[in-house]
């Protein structure tokens, strides 16, 4: 029995998983912020369910990360091919769900890592089709896998990770990233206790680096 649309509602409610942002209208309403962050336990629940191939987990993963994967694909291969590439990414990931290891990195990162290869494949297919027309000669046929695609994948997964943070936490983290302020100054600026600032930044950095590590987990 696959993760079909007919039964996903059942699977998801069984899991008690909450959909990601973007689908909303159905948030559980226990978040103080309107743009409430998805907390770690929630993310972990989806990751564990996905790795286990639990019914409904494919949809949960798509609801959470579909926008990221689609947006990345669209920017690399264009709107015509983006749908197909996004489908390929999620289906490939689902076929290999048992290879996803949450201890090695996040699902968002892992999916983005797969997406990086899928867009490269799509570009290569396109390139071959072009090359057949041009037949310019072997030596010009370097694989079209530009380094900036990889860099863009990394940036987008981190941007998405930042967007997932609760707004007040995101503010602290962005001050950590983009200012020269010390923890004390960040505490002063945000009006939060020093201990909170330190622990939230530490925790958020740990969450964010998992996205890059998830990408590393696909060769």
């Amino acid at each position: 029995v696959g993760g079909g649309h007919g039964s996903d509602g059942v699977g998801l409610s069984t899991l008690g998983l909450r959909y990601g942002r973007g689908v909303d209208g159905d948030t559980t309403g226990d978040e103080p912020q309107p743009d409430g962050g998805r907390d770690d336990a929630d993310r972990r629940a989806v990751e564990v369910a996905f790795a286990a191939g639990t019914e409904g987990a494919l949809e949960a993963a798509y609801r959470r990360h579909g926008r990221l994967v689609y947006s990345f694909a669209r920017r690399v291969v264009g709107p015509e091919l983006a749908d197909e590439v996004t489908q390929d990414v999620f289906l490939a990931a689902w076929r290999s769900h048992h290879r996803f290891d949450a201890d090695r990195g996040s699902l968002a990162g892992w999916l983005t890592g797969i997406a990086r290869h899928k867009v490269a494949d799509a570009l290569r297919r396109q390139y071959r089709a072009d090359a057949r027309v041009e037949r310019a000669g072997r030596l010009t046929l370097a694989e079209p896998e530009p380094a900036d695609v990889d860099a863009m994948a990394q940036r987008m997964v981190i941007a998405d990770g930042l967007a997932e943070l609760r707004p007040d936490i995101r503010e602290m983290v962005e001050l950590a990233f983009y200012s020269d302020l010390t923890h004390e100054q960040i505490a002063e600026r945000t009006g939060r206790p020093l201990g909170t600032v330190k622990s939230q930044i530490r925790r958020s950095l740990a969450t964010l680096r998992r996205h890059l590590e998830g990408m590393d987990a696909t060769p």
Partner: protein
Amino acid sequence: MPPRDPDERLLAALRPPVPVPGDDDHADGEHDDGDAGEHRGVDRDHDGDEGGDDDLAAIRRLGAVARDLTDDDRALDEPPAALWAGIAARADDEGNREAQAAPITATDAGAPGAPRTAGPAGALGAARRPGVSRSRAARTGGTRWLLAVAAVVVVVAGLAAAVVARGGDEPSVVARAEVLPLDGAVGAPATAEVVEEDGGVRRLVGVSGADLPEPDGFYEVWLLDEDAVGMVSLGPLRDDGTYEVPGGVDLGAFPVVDVSVEPSDGDPRHSGVSVLRGTLS
């Protein structure tokens, strides 16, 4: 002198490195790459060890990525509403095919003279799905049985081939790949071939990495699946460029020839750093 407080060290790692006199501007980028490579593979030993070197390297890398963020990176596009339905339908299809394909595969593999020797195309389609998507538990449980079946098939195929092709034909080329340096890697393009000898033994030839620079660690040769998620190691790179393809490996399911740089850290997994790659067809 780096700060002693682990939190302060994290902050310092996150931010642009202070230029060292004598270093030119390129040091930044190269430094980040080195950190990323060094960080991989050893990370798990240091989980929870905040402020360890690996953690700082990971944070440094994170900071470098974050510094390059643009508004474009932050603005995501909404996928078409129908996209999920398409994924769900295809996932259902594959689920159904898997359910049907599994018993058929088993019968095929068990039957003497099964077309295992027919070449890489033989086992491509449906047969590949169950192997890839079965749960870990099922795979582990079935491994011994599969190995036994595979061994029988190999022996039967070997005998058949020996009877038919006595006297030793030329090994036949069953697949070929242009193996090219990946972006940013050094090395010359090469043609790799999988040849099948009359005993049914398949060898990958032509992957010697003659032009590769001295690695930090060693080079390892792999067959990857199309998604670069599943993989089979063929061992360290050899000067003669020749590797035996294990008997049970379906080249249709693992068509990508890949050469990676592996740190000598005892971690048997792929480092994630590939230098050469090509797809068999």
